[in-house]
């Protein structure tokens, strides 16, 4: 399993962002360093959820926002290594909608926010064939284990053992 290093300070910032925007989804960029055998989040770049039609269960970031995040990362000698968002009143499991809108390589951190309180946080990576997300270990552990793979109603376990 791949690993992403997330300090408690960064994890706290993600949780706080999720609580701040509840019951809407929060989102932002993970700025950090990626090497062959390690990946570390060094800073966050908070973004505004552009989905004003259904912000409780969707988030969207424009390509201009993405370019801003890229520039912010470069200024700090970092790169955008992934994205985070919250799932208000829902587990930290990627949805089919998440899968359709993802690329491999990026880390996708999801924080579950139940009744306004941030809880489980998990990180995911899309497989190269786009068929499923695989979990990425968050180090040190920050309640990183998903509650249950079956917990997401719009998520189907596949016979290959992954999530589709």
């Amino acid at each position: 399993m791949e690993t992403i290093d997330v300090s408690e300070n960064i994890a706290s910032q993600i949780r706080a962002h999720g609580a701040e925007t509840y019951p809407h989804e929060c989102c932002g960029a993970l700025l950090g360093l990626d090497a062959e055998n390690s990946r570390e989040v060094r800073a966050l770049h908070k973004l505004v959820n552009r989905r004003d039609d259904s912000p409780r269960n969707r988030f969207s970031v424009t390509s201009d926002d993405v370019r801003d995040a890229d520039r912010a990362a470069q200024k700090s000698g970092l790169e955008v290594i992934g994205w985070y968002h919250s799932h208000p009143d829902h587990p930290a499991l990627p949805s089919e909608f998440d899968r359709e809108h993802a690329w491999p390589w990026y880390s996708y951190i999801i924080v579950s926010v139940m009744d306004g309180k941030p809880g489980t946080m998990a990180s995911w990576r899309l497989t190269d064939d786009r068929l499923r997300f695989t979990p990425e270990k968050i180090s040190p552990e920050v309640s990183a284990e998903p509650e249950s793979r079956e917990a997401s109603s719009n998520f189907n376990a596949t016979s290959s053992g992954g999530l589709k």
Partner: protein
Amino acid sequence: MPVNVMIPTPLRPFVGKKSAIELKAATVGEALRVLTTEFADLRKHLYTDEGKIRSFVNVYVNDEDIRYLEKENTPLKDGDTVSIVPSIAGGR
């Protein structure tokens, strides 16, 4: 006409880890077709199974979003830079 297609980091593993690919194309659509013909594993990350550019994949020509130009028919000239930029979306 040689143009440069800038490859975002997540897609570099599918183009031999290169950050830019030089190719000849008269339009943006042709440039992406040439690119995904040469690097077939890239195709599914840019196009849907129906052959349309994925909704979250955005293309710029020299800093101009092709949605405000002629989309995939946007003409290219020598030395143009084509950038592929995702927009990020998700939710439960």
